[in-house]
Structures are given as C-alpha cells and as structure tokens.
C-alpha cells in the first residue's frame, strides 16, 4: 500500500541553524500538509499546500517557516533559524481529493539544542 515517507526520522540541530524536513507524499495525492506535535500536546496544523501554493497556514507558521514542492515528488518544510520551542515531532500528510482522509508519514523528531 502506498505511504507517505519522511526523512530524516530524527534531526538534531543547534539553535539558530536552518533545518529542512523532507516528505514524499503518496504519488496521486494533490493536497499536502505539515503538522507538528510538541511532547505532551495535541497534533496541530501548520500549513496546507495545493496547486503549488500555500492554501492556509496557522499562526505558528511565521516568517521562519517555508514550504516547497521542488519537483513532482518531494514536499519540504524549512525552518530558517530554529528556536528551542521548535523541538517537536513534525508530520507530513497528503490527501487525494474531496472528502478523502489525510494519510500521515511516521514523522521527523526535531531536537533543537
């Protein structure tokens, strides 16, 4: 069964450094998402992406964050200058179409030192 894949599974970065989290969504899916889960808290929406542009972003998704779909398969989340509070699990998800469920990858654990 096709699945969403995320790399790396764990990323350790110094505060202030840039980090890029990578995702390969399911191939025939059209809608892409990033979520994050800080330890002990809910999974929370960051950004949605459709037709090569951001369709919605949360208040968390400030100027330090960006997303890109550089080719037909990858979907990336970049954090320009990481902060301690960016430490979390980051999940990528994709969806095929209307009233279709989102399918999630296994996440990247981001640890900021």
């Amino acid at each position, binding site marked *: 069964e096709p699945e969403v894949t995320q790399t790396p599974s764990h990323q350790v970065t110094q505060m202030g450094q840039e980090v890029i989290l990578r995702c390969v969504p399911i191939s025939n899916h059209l809608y892409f998402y990033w979520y994050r889960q800080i330890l002990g808290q809910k*999974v*929370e929406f960051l950004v*949605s992406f459709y037709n090569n542009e951001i369709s919605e972003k949360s208040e968390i998704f400030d100027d330090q964050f960006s997303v890109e779909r550089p080719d037909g398969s990858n979907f990336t989340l970049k954090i320009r200058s990481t902060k301690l509070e960016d430490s979390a699990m980051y999940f990528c998800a994709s969806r095929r179409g209307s009233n279709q469920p989102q399918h999630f990858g296994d996440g990247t654990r981001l640890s900021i030192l």
Partner: protein
Amino acid sequence: DQQVKQNSPSLSVQEGRISILNCDYTNSMFDYFLWYKKYPAEGPTFLISISSIKDKNEDGRFTVFLNKSAKHLSLHIVPSQPGDSAVYFCAASANGGGSNYKLTFGKGTLLTVNP
C-alpha cells in the same frame, strides 16, 4: 484550543469485548470526522471517517457514530484485540466553502486491550 475533546486519556478493555472511544466537539462548522490510530514512533494511521450527512459508518470491526445535535462521536471496536492497543485520535475538519480540510485533533485516548 479545545474544539475537539477526548475526555478519557485512557481506556482498558478485555480481549473480545467492545471498546468505545468518545469524542466531543464545539465547532458547529465541522462536517467531516476521522479516527486515527497511533503506535509509538509511528505516524497517525487512518482508521475510519464519517461525513456529517451520516450518523453511522462501519468498516469491519470499526464503527463510528455521529450525533450532530450533541456534537459527539464515538468509535466502537468489536471485538477488541490486543493488537488494537494504541493511542486513538479523533480529528475534525470544516470542509464547506472551499476549505482546505485542515484537521483539528483531540488529545488522544490510550486504549489497552488485555489478553
């Protein structure tokens, strides 16, 4: 943000019995509801969904019930198996008016099925 609430942090049931997981929501714009299962070190796995035009959806051992007037949904697992032991998340989205289907999650309920 308490738009989706799962008030039971944990639930323990015997193998073969029914597991009932509950979820309440406050946003009346939500019209699509999903249940996800999550094992440690894995991402949420989609289980079953229901649109607000229905009150029940069934898929094998899993049934989701939606009570719109009470803003309540539940997931029934019958019969429960030890492999069902995981954290179960309720999620909702407001899909009308061209929304992008972003999901709002509950905090999750840890289900333990004892052999």
